[in-house]
């Protein structure tokens, strides 16, 4: 891993299109600004980890509860239609 020290206001360039700006450093937090083309995905790592762990958990799910839930959703839908009329 490449490790660089930067001060507030300084920038790191990655390739031609990506720039990481150090906006503010205080009390153990660093505020970062990122300039990048729109097709480059930028996200906090914990978002990726949460989606991943939820995928793994959801893949274990059974279907037994779905029949009842499907009925509940259909009733909700019918009620919605009735309310509109």
């Amino acid at each position, binding site marked *: 891993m490449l490790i660089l020290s930067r001060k507030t206001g300084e920038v790191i360039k990655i390739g031609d299109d990506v720039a990481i700006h150090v906006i503010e450093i205080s009390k153990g937090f660093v505020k970062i600004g990122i300039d990048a083309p729109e097709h480059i995905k930028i996200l906090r790592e914990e978002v990726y980890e949460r989606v991943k762990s*939820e*995928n793994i958990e959801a*893949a274990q*799910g059974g279907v037994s509860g779905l029949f009842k839930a499907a009925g509940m959703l259909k009733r909700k839908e019918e009620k919605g239609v009735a309310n509109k009329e």
Partner: protein
Amino acid sequence: MELNTRQFGPVTIDERKIITLPKGIPGFADAKKFVILDHDDIQPFYSFQSVEDEKLAFIIMDPYLFKGDYNVDVDSSVLEMNWTLEEKEDMFLYVIINATDPDPKKMTANLMGPLLINIKRNEGIQLMVGDKGYSNKHLIFGKN
């Protein structure tokens, strides 16, 4: 093509309807080919069934049926997939349902990682939504 699925037993699938997720699904990096199966008994839920691993399937549904104001920005993912913004009418958003507890009141939807499917191209991607305050465990019935 026949698949012996974990959730619904043997099913015959139409190979022309196979959806490719070039980037896979986090947690299942090798799973890139899926089909959407519908079963009358569980509508409006669908099964998002892996073609490569018969035992792998997710339950998915249209998020607007329980969260009418669900709103995610799909543009960067559209560009990442090399689709065009003009194709938006061919794109559908689904959320993955966690039904590990059979009690519907405990059933949750992952609003943080919706699937965006382009039905004309038969391609899809799982989005990562980190900036809207959406939960990866949003209760479908009841208060969140």
